[in-house]
């Protein structure tokens, strides 16, 4: 991480007083014992307490904070629920963490026009909850949806199991109210489709809190399907599972979700959810939507496809309770693995056709580095989550883990995929960007930040390797 600006550190008291002048005192956190809790997000291996934390209660307060920081040249690190797995909300010692966790209201719901407008600190699942009674839902469903904030979803362009059919955040985002680093408040997009000119909404989504702080979001809501049913298909090899996925897609079926778990994951998540997963080498969870008869028909087609790949077991869920447990297990996979071991969760994407090959090479890397890997991922779009199991309290283990992680991600890029499918670059993959992008590629992205945040104060130490962004961050002394 860049060296903190000593000038800012020295002026801490003055800065805190200035923040307390624009926010309620209880919304400014500056005691070292308390700022500690904000030193990391879901990637707890990397930690650094910020200078201070602010929790504004309105867009106007966010603007006042940013104006102040703009004037004083203080870096700002936006934070949603702090569930990022890539260190997106990791502060530096001279930065202010700007948390939107107090901005949780539903502002407008319009079922005729099929959108909901919310404050960005609202959790993903609670957006669906707000429209569930009328038979609607918000589609992108990251596994952390219970806790993650819309703000973070927009920053990282989050996906989820059901994005195979419904797309990721950027395909479901209609508009934002964003505060730029100089305090300008601007609305982009809205309840209508199409941008009038350049797709600025599209570039803000996935910009990891580097272009502005989103305080409100207009989201597309969809009518809930008549029903949904998952089917579990167990295989005695990952190859068979992978081949089955390609077969199903080629036959014209587009399920709502296709998830993959290997034996290690199956065991851990089954213990947590009581879903009754089969004890197999590889398992697919495939979800189909529609009326019962429609589901039955598609399930039949899937069964015929699967039969061509020597399945060990095919089991359709027989009840809503069972379906809930099947998904609860998958969605808790990371946490459930945590019962067994510390782990580092990777997020590379590969072309679906490369699945069996990549799994084999990951197994070889596992042997080489001496660390076990459990695999869970979105098989339908090739977004993998290898969980490298290590021991945080064993010196050197974290480093070995990181080296192995790097090799796996490079492998993903090598076979035509990418470094990160939904968790974002953050700090975790920042220094690997050159594996996927040339300097020119990165320069064109940084040019966008130059336009939105010329002073490079918003979350400056993320996404781009520090050497590559050095020239742009000079203004902040970073």
């Amino acid at each position, binding site marked *: 991480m860049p060296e903190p600006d000593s000038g800012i550190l020295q002026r801490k008291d003055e800065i805190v007083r200035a923040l307390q002048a624009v926010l309620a005192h209880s919304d400014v956190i500056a005691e070292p014992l308390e700022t500690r809790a904000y030193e990391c997000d879901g990637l707890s291996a990397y930690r650094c307490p910020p200078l201070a934390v602010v929790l504004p209660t309105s867009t106007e307060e966010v603007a006042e904070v940013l104006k102040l920081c703009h004037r004083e040249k203080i870096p700002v690190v936006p934070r949603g629920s702090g569930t990022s797995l890539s260190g997106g909300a990791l502060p530096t010692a001279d930065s202010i963490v700007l948390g939107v966790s107090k901005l949780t209201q539903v502002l407008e719901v319009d079922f005729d026009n099929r959108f909901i407008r919310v404050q960005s600190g609202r959790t993903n699942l609670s957006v669906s909850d707000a429209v569930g009674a009328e038979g609607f839902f918000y589609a992108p469903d990251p596994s952390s949806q219970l806790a993650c904030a819309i703000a973070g979803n927009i920053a990282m362009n989050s996906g989820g199991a059901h994005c195979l059919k419904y797309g990721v955040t950027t395909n479901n985002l209609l508009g934002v109210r964003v505060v730029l680093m100089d305090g300008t408040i601007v609305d982009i997009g809205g309840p209508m489709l199409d941008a009038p000119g350049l797709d600025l909404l599209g570039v803000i989504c996935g910009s990891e809190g580097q272009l502005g702080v989103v305080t409100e979001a207009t989201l597309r809501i969809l009518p809930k399907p008549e029903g949904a049913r998952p089917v579990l298909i167990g295989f005695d090899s990952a190859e068979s599972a992978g081949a089955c996925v390609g077969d199903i897609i080629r036959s014209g079926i587009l399920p709502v979700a296709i998830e993959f778990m290997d034996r290690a994951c199956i065991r851990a998540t089954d213990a947590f959810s009581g879903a009754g997963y089969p004890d197999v080498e590889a398992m697919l969870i495939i979800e189909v939507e529609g009326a019962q008869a*429609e589901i039955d028909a598609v399930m039949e087609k899937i069964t015929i496809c699967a039969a061509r790949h020597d399945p060990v077991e095919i089991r359709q869920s027989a009840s809503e309770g069972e379906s809930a447990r099947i998904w609860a297990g998958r969605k808790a996979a990371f946490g459930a693995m945590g019962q067994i071991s510390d782990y580092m969760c990777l997020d590379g*994407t590969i072309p679906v056709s490369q699945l069996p090959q990549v799994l084999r090479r990951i197994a070889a890397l596992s042997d080489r580095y001496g660390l076990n890997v459990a695999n869970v991922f979105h098989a339908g779009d090739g977004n993998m989550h290898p969980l490298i199991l290590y021991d945080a309290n064993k010196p050197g283990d974290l480093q070995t883990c990181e080296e192995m992680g790097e090799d796996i991600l490079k492998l993903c890029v090598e076979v035509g995929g990418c470094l990160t499918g939904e968790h974002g670059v953050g700090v975790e993959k920042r220094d690997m960007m050159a594996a996927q992008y040339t300097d020119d590629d990165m320069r064109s992205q940084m040019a966008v930040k130059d336009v939105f945040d010329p002073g490079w104060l918003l979350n400056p130490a993320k996404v781009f390797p520090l050497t590559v962004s050095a020239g742009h961050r000079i203004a902040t002394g970073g």
Partner: protein
Amino acid sequence: MAICRPQSEAELAASIAAARTPLAIRGGGTRGFAPQVCCDDLDVTALRGISLYEPGALTIVADAGTPLVDVQAALAAKGQQLAFEPMDHRGLLGTTGEPTIGGVVAGNISGPRRIQAGACRDFLLGVRFVDGTGRIIKNGGRVMKNVTGYDLVKLLAGSFGTLGVLSEVALKVLAISETQVSVVARGLSDRQGVAMLTRALGSPFDVTGAAHLACVAGNTTTMIRLEGFTDSVAYRADRLATLLADFGDISIDNDGENVAAQWAALRDVREFSNRPGDVWRISVKPSDGPLVGDRMHKITRAQIIYDLGGGLVWLLVPAGTDVRRALADIDGHARLERASDPKFATFASQGPVLDKVSGALREKFDPRGILNPGLMG
């Protein structure tokens, strides 16, 4: 006015780097954009060919100058399609030429299925392009889940060549549905028509097209498309017809060819082809669609097609009608799609802040201002 026709991405980059005058980027030339300043033509059609197509991964990668029909034919051979069904402008604009896939992406050209499946930009997985200084840039890749760095893929889509010249695009494809039907009502008013579309789009029956054609008062057509496996479509059509029964006589068009033809005609706004007048493309929130219609009918003769459930309004109005002024108090924006004597800017302003941001972005990507200058602002 010289014409430059690079044969490869490297040549494209060199041409742009060496350019001494502004460039008008030409794919199929079917959009009829007339540059406001004197430009050399930059013809990209030699960059053609499909370099990768994996039906099992729903992915196709093609050079930007590849004719759209070639892409569609390759996909159709495997029972797949570009689900965003890009509009063919030639009938409406009276142009000739072969639309290219790069042109489709550069314009974010989409069609009625946008309401359910998404627009071109929602299917765009990756781009390679040459910026205004001649640098070759890539963004995205060939996989759907990709959040590595900023999403310039979205920025390039719909940038009409003003940020860079596309050399290669990667797209997600979907299967062609086994069956498609239309659920149709006739004679509904604009309000009733949009209300019917709203109810359909709020149903769980997975509607993939929702339009109300009001070109001739009293003789309107409200149509809703359902696609998928045959049994599923039959079931959903039946349920939908029941759900919409109180709007009047609901009929189901099962003739697949006819249905396809109807939606293609809507997609290409064929109603307005060969008819004089300006064509505007309005984006509003769907329930405001009829408001747009009311407003226009008050001030002039207007023919109207409502697509995307009422959220996309096509207007055919007498030449020179100031549509933006008439609609000024309605939230949304209007694009001038066709005008024999354009008095108004093609693209609407995004407001002072965003116009400034857009201008600054264009300056970053094209510092000399040579790529389709003035096209977007």
